[in-house]
Every structure is written in C-alpha cells, then in structure tokens.
C-alpha cells in the first residue's frame, strides 16, 4: 500500500511537472504572441506541445489509478506538491527569481505532505489492530 502511494504520486508529479514545463517551452518557442494562424502553427510544429499532451494523458491515467484507492480529499491536497516541483524547474531552467515567501510556502507544502503520510500510517496501523 505504501509503495502504491509513493510510486503513484511520483508518477503524477513527474507528468504534472513535465506538462507545465512543456507548456512554458511551447509558449516560448511560439513567440511572438500575435493571435494568428502562424502562431498556432508555430505551437503545433514544436515537439513540446506533444510532450505536454502525452504528459496530460499520463497524469490522467495515474490520477484514476490513485483514486481507486486513495481518499480524494487528502490526495487532491497532496497533488499540489507539483507547485513545489514546478517552482524548482522555473528557478533552474527558466531563471525565475526565488523569493523568501515562495521558499517558505514550499517548505510548508512539504510539511503538509508529511502530515498526510503520517495520517495514512496511523490509519493503516489502526486497521491492523482492528483485524
């Protein structure tokens, strides 16, 4: 069960992050933004938009597999870890600035995930006791 969650969320995180990164690369490669057919063609003739599409499909399948077992409330919250990974990609690949507030936010999100993991552990051991 523990492995199911770790692998599931790791895949979801990878697909989500790749999807967002792909969107950004597609946008950058399609510049200048001029709302014309040429702009749409520039988007469609770049590999990144297809990487993004595949990532979204992968994320959908992973999410459905996770939801078969995971409670939707905590799982939906945990999936926000992608904000932290997208932030890291933004810093290293796109040279976006890292602020104190963002760093603090990222640390708080990660500590929230740790609490959710502890909650699962407690619930699992409680179930064992009941059997």
């Amino acid at each position, binding site marked *: 069960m523990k492995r199911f969650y770790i692998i599931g969320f790791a895949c979801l995180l990878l697909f989500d992050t790749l999807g967002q990164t792909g969107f950004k690369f597609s946008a950058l490669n399609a510049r200048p933004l001029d709302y014309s057919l040429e702009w749409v063609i520039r988007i469609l003739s770049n590999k990144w938009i297809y990487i993004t599409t595949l990532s979204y499909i992968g994320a959908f399948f992973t999410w459905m597999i996770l*939801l078969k077992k995971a409670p939707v409330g905590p799982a*939906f919250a945990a999936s926000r870890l992608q904000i932290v990974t997208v932030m890291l990609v933004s810093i290293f690949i796109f040279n976006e600035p890292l*602020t104190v507030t963002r760093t*603090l936010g990222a640390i708080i999100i990660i500590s*929230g995930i740790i609490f959710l993991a*502890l909650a699962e552990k407690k619930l699992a051991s409680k179930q064992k006791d009941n059997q």
Partner: protein
Amino acid sequence: MPEHIPFIKMTLAIFGLWLCSICCDTVGQIAFKCAAISPKRQSGWHYWFAILRSYWLWIGVSAYGVGFLFWIAFLTLLPLSQAILLGSANIISVMIVGRLVFKEQLTPYRIIGVSLITFGVILVGIG
C-alpha cells in the same frame, strides 16, 4: 479594477465567479473519484473501457471545462496573487465533500496536513 463598475456589483461578481469555480473543481474531483471506483472489474483493459464509458468521467471532464471558463473570468477581475489565495479553497472543499460523499475520515493529522498545504500554496501564489 475597472472603474466604471460599482464596487458592490464588482464584489458580487467576484464572489459569484469564485463560488462557481470552486463548485466546478469540487464536482469534477468527486466525479473522477466516482468514475475510478465505479467499474466492477478493477483491472486490465476492461477497467479503462468501463471508465471511458462511465458518465461520471464525462461529468468530471465537463465540470473542469466549465470551471476553466469561470476561472479565466475570475482572473480578469482580480490580480493573480489574490485569485490564487481564494482559489486554494478548493483543497478544503474537496476534502469536506469527500468526507460527506465517501465517508473519508477527517483525522487530526489529515486536517493539519491539508491546512498546511493550503497555506503553503497561498504563500507560493503570493510569491
């Protein structure tokens, strides 16, 4: 903020769009969960075909489609940082509706975890 719209109307519009957007996100996630647990056979190709044929999946997809439009409308009225602050409420609403519909337990650790994530998302959004 557009000058020509009176303040009270503006506030109502923001509140209404926010509520609609949160409702769409919540309905979407609950529908996805319903779709994921609805097939009788839980593995193989049969499982995925059953999901694709399940009306819950399409309710979820439509909810997300409509929610996307509400969110864009909401973003035209508010700066992104404030919008993310309000938009993070969907983490809380999905948890509450998950409790009501699927009897998901709200243990203290889960409440702490979800609250921390919501707060963290807001902080990153404010930047």
